[in-house]
C-alpha cells in the first residue's frame, strides 16, 4: 500500500465576528488575570488540528443520560427532558460524538467542595451526564431544572439557570464547551458570562426553547437546544457535479 501523498486537510471555518466572547471581559472579573494579553497566533490546519479524539460507548453506562436515575431515590425538582441535535456549520449532523453535561441541583447547589452556597445538597442528584449523539446528531438527557445561584463576581450577582455542555466533534478544531440557558430567564441580561458574547442573536442561540413535542405528559417538560460545531471550509462534495 502506498502512502497517500500529502495534501493539506481542509480547514475549519472561523466563527462570525461577534459570535464568540473575547478573552478579556472585565465585567466577568476572573477574566482580568487569566486572559492572554498577546494576540493569538493563527495556526494553519494540519493533521494535528483536523484529527481529534473519538469516543465510543465502552465507557458510557445505561443511566448516564438520565440524571434522575443515578441514585436510589428521585432528586428533588422539576423533571425536564433536554433534546437537540449537534450539527456542524454546514448543517450536517455530527454523529456519534460525545456530549458531557453538568449542572446545579434544583436549589442551585453543586455537590462540590468549593461550592459553599447556603442551599441544600440533594443526595439523589449528582448533576453529571453523558451520551453519544445518534446517526442524525440527536442527543437526549433527562434531568431536573437547575436552580439559579449567587456568585461573588459583583454585588448581588446571580447566575441564570444553566446546564454546562462539553462537546468534541470530529477534530481538535471543533472542541466546544458552553452553557445552555432557559427561556424567559430574567437573570440573563445581568449575567456577564452570557453578556460577554457581543452579538445578541448569538447570545439568544444559547437559550433553549420549550418544546411541547418532547414534553412527556404527567412527567417532564421538554426543552430543545441545537448545538452547532465549526464546519469545514468549502470543499467539493462527493456528490457535487463539477463543471467539465
Amino acid at each position, binding site marked *: 500500500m*502506498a502512502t497517500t501523498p500529502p495534501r493539506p486537510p481542509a480547514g475549519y471555518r472561523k466563527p462570525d465576528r461577534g459570535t464568540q466572547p473575547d478573552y478579556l471581559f472585565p465585567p466577568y472579573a476572573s477574566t482580568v488575570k487569566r486572559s492572554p494579553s498577546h494576540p*493569538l497566533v493563527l*495556526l494553519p490546519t*494540519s493533521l494535528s488540528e483536523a484529527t481529534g479524539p473519538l469516543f465510543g460507548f465502552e465507557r458510557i453506562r445505561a443511566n448516564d443520560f438520565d440524571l434522575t436515575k443515578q441514585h436510589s431515590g428521585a432528586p428533588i425538582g422539576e423533571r425536564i427532558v433536554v433534546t437537540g441535535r449537534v450539527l456542524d456549520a454546514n448543517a450536517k449532523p455530527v454523529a456519534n460524538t460525545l456530549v458531557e453535561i453538568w449542572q446545579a441541583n434544583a436549589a442551585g447547589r453543586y455537590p462540590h467542595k*468549593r461550592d459553599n452556597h447556603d442551599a441544600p445538597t440533594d443526595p439523589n442528584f449528582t448533576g453529571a451526564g453523558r451520551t453519544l449523539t445518534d446517526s442524525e446528531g440527536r442527543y437526549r438527557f433527562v434531568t431536573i431544572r437547575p436552580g439559579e445561584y449567587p456568585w461573588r463576581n459583583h454585588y448581588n450577582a446571580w447566575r441564570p439557570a444553566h446546564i454546562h455542555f*462539553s462537546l468534541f466533534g470530529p477534530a*481538535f478544531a471543533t*472542541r466546544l464547551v458552553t452553557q445552555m440557558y432557559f427561556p424567559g430567564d430574567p437573570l440573563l441580561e445581568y449575567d456577564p458570562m452570557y453578556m460577554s458574547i457581543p452579538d445578541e442573536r448569538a447570545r439568544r442561540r444559547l437559550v433553549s426553547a420549550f418544546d411541547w413535542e418532547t414534553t412527556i405528559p404527567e412527567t417532564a417538560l421538554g426543552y430543545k437546544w441545537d448545538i452547532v*460545531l465549526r464546519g469545514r471550509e468549502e470543499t467539493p462534495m462527493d456528490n457535487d457535479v463539477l463543471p467539465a
Partner: protein
Amino acid sequence: MSLQTTSSQTIGPYLHIGTTWLVTQDLTAPGVTGERIAIDGRVLDGDGKPVIDALVEIWQANAHGRYAHPEDTRDLPLEAGFTGFGRSQTDEQGRFRFTTIKPGRVPGADGRLQAPHLNVTIFMRGILKHLITRMYFPDDPANATDPVLGLVPEARRGTLVARRTKPGVLAWEVILQGDGETVFFEC
C-alpha cells in the same frame, strides 16, 4: 446551508463534576512503543498564582507519527491501546500531570514535517473560550525547522518547549498572562 457556530462559554469552577470521569493522565499501555515521558505541568495566572481549577487536554500522534483518527490515512502503524487523548485537572498548586510517549513527526499544513508536539486545550473559570497551545520537546533538532514554531516570534518560542528536569521527566509551565506569557493559538 450555513449555520452560525454556537458561542463558547466558560467551563466554570465546578468542572470536576462533569469531567472527572474521563480524566486520563496515563496515555500509555503495555505494548505501546515509544519513549516514555512524564510531564509535570503547571498553570499560572497573570499574578503568578497557581490556577487550581483548570482542565488540560492533550491530543497527540503515536510514536510512528500517526493519529488514531480516520482522517489520518497515511500508511503508518496504529497501536492498540494508544488513543492519543489525555485529560488532567490542575490541583491546589496548579499542577497537572501526564504520562505518555513522545509522538513521531506529522506533516504540517505545507507538507513539511513538524517537530514532535502535543496539541493542548485548556479550560478554566475566567476563560470564556478555551485556550489552544502546543508543547514541544527540548533538544529536538526538528524544533529548528518546525513550521508552527516558525510562525511564533523567536523571543516567545521558548514558552512552547518543555524543560527536561531529569531523565524521562519534562516540566512545562503555562503562563496565562504577562512576563513569559505562553503562546496561544487560533486554529
